[in-house]
């Protein structure tokens, strides 16, 4: 591509320090798409309300996917909705992260057997970074999932970056 193309292909002190800075800034301002699907969305709202206060982790709901880094799939993904979720995900700028919250979006949950209109796991349409189990998960569980995601981002490498 350019002169510096090969220069940074190996990790070096500049890269790693810069990487740390990038990762730190990414993980501490994860803006999420304000997007609720089902029961888990209520717990997500409770997480951002006074008792658990999502803002402490830099998570601020944004109305538009184009301004956000994180999408929390909170609830049952139906076939009718799946394509919209895919589109929302595609509209988000890189780097983007996905938390699948609750049994339903993990694998269809209680609806996996007879649900003729339920997508059995959101990972069939978008890649998922962290699976938070629970039906619905406690707000703490969602926060723990977020901390896990932050841990993942912290260990990301600029050079060896695999698109999430």
């Amino acid at each position, binding site marked *: 591509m350019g002169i510096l193309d090969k220069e940074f292909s190996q990790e070096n002190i500049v890269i790693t320090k810069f990487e740390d800075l990038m990762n730190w800034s990414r993980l501490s301002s994860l803006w999420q798409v304000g997007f*609720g699907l089902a029961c888990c969305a209520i717990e997500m709202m*409770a997480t951002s309300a*006074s008792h658990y206060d999502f803002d402490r982790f830099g998570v601020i709901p944004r*109305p538009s996917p184009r301004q956000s880094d994180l999408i929390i799939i909170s*609830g049952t993904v139906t076939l009718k909705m799946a394509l919209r979720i895919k589109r929302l995900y595609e509209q988000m700028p890189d780097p983007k992260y996905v938390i699948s919250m609750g049994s339903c979006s993990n694998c269809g949950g*209680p609806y996996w057997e007879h649900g003729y209109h339920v997508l059995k796991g959101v990972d069939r349409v978008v890649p998922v970074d962290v699976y938070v189990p629970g039906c619905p998960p406690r707000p703490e569980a969602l926060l723990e999932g977020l901390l896990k995601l932050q841990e993942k981002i912290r260990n990301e490498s600029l050079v060896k970056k695999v698109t999430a």
Partner: protein
Amino acid sequence: MIEMETTSTNLRTQEMVLNMGPQHPSTHGVLRLEIELDGELIVDVRPHVGYLHRCFEKHCEAMTYPQIVPYVDRMDYLAAMYSEIGYAVAVERLLGIEVPERVEYIRIIMGELQRIASHLVAVGTYGLDIGAFTPFLYCFRDREKILTLFEMTCGARLLYNYIWPGGVSHDLPPDFIRMTKEFLTEFKPTIVELNNLLSYNKIFIERTANVGILPLETAINYGVTGPNLRASGLKWDLRRDDPYSIYDRFDFEIPVGKGWHGTVGDCWDRYYLRMIEMEQSVRILEQAIEQIPEGDVTSAIPKRIKPVEGQIYTRVENPRGELGYFIVSKGGLQPHRVKVRAPSFVNLEILGELCKGHLVADVVAILGSIDIVLGEVDR
């Protein structure tokens, strides 16, 4: 788009179709509205539902009667206790069994706490839609206290699986009565506070009064129930008009909309009615907690629920309106058909009528005042 001949007397701008949702912060979930606009005036609103259709009725046909209860929770997730009460009452009437006195009292306490919790979400998110963020935080703070009560009773915060056909799964924990009393004394000043913060705010009144007026005739013909119907002026509450459980023992009032700041049946009435209903729920709770008898709560739970061939439709007053269960049994362990009359499903139908002639910004106000839960609309 409608083609029209443009003449000097009939000069119209081109109509525009605006899509709102399914991802939109103020649609309260996954609802898509197709809004037909003439300039900024709304010509028609067509809701598209089904983005959360979770096949509840198909699941019922494959489950035994007790196994349906967890699925019933997931229908109206803001008032899961009340969905369970409705289902339990339906199955009990189908079987023809009586439940112990204490169970009835527990159900009423749970139901009314749930009503307060559900209305708090309705009021809080309505404030959020209109542009007031603070009431949302206060509402969720108080709702969290109710959830703590539920959690110590049955172990779950949102979806309880607590009220079973014939009884409840656990007895009340020892501290429950004391903590509920504490909550009620703390909560009563909060209603006043919320009223001062939001209800009587001039800006809020300007946004909601005289907006989305629902006349009584239309409301009945469209089958609108619950606070939305009462705001239009009809004193119709199933707790009194088609009594179930033991609501006839309590002394409470059924508030109706009076057009305090505008016309009867406008958004402000619908909103304010929920505030008054919370006060009435507190009244019922205070009485129920004083009167609750001792007794066994699991004795009437049938070991095996196998009703004879028959069908029943029962309804209860959910925080959102008339929640009905239509159960057809063909004599098996599984029901032949369960159909739910979801209050939000019927109430949402009126949206097109309400929005006609208003501005785009009013759609948010009107939709929030109807207070729908998409899980129940789509089931």
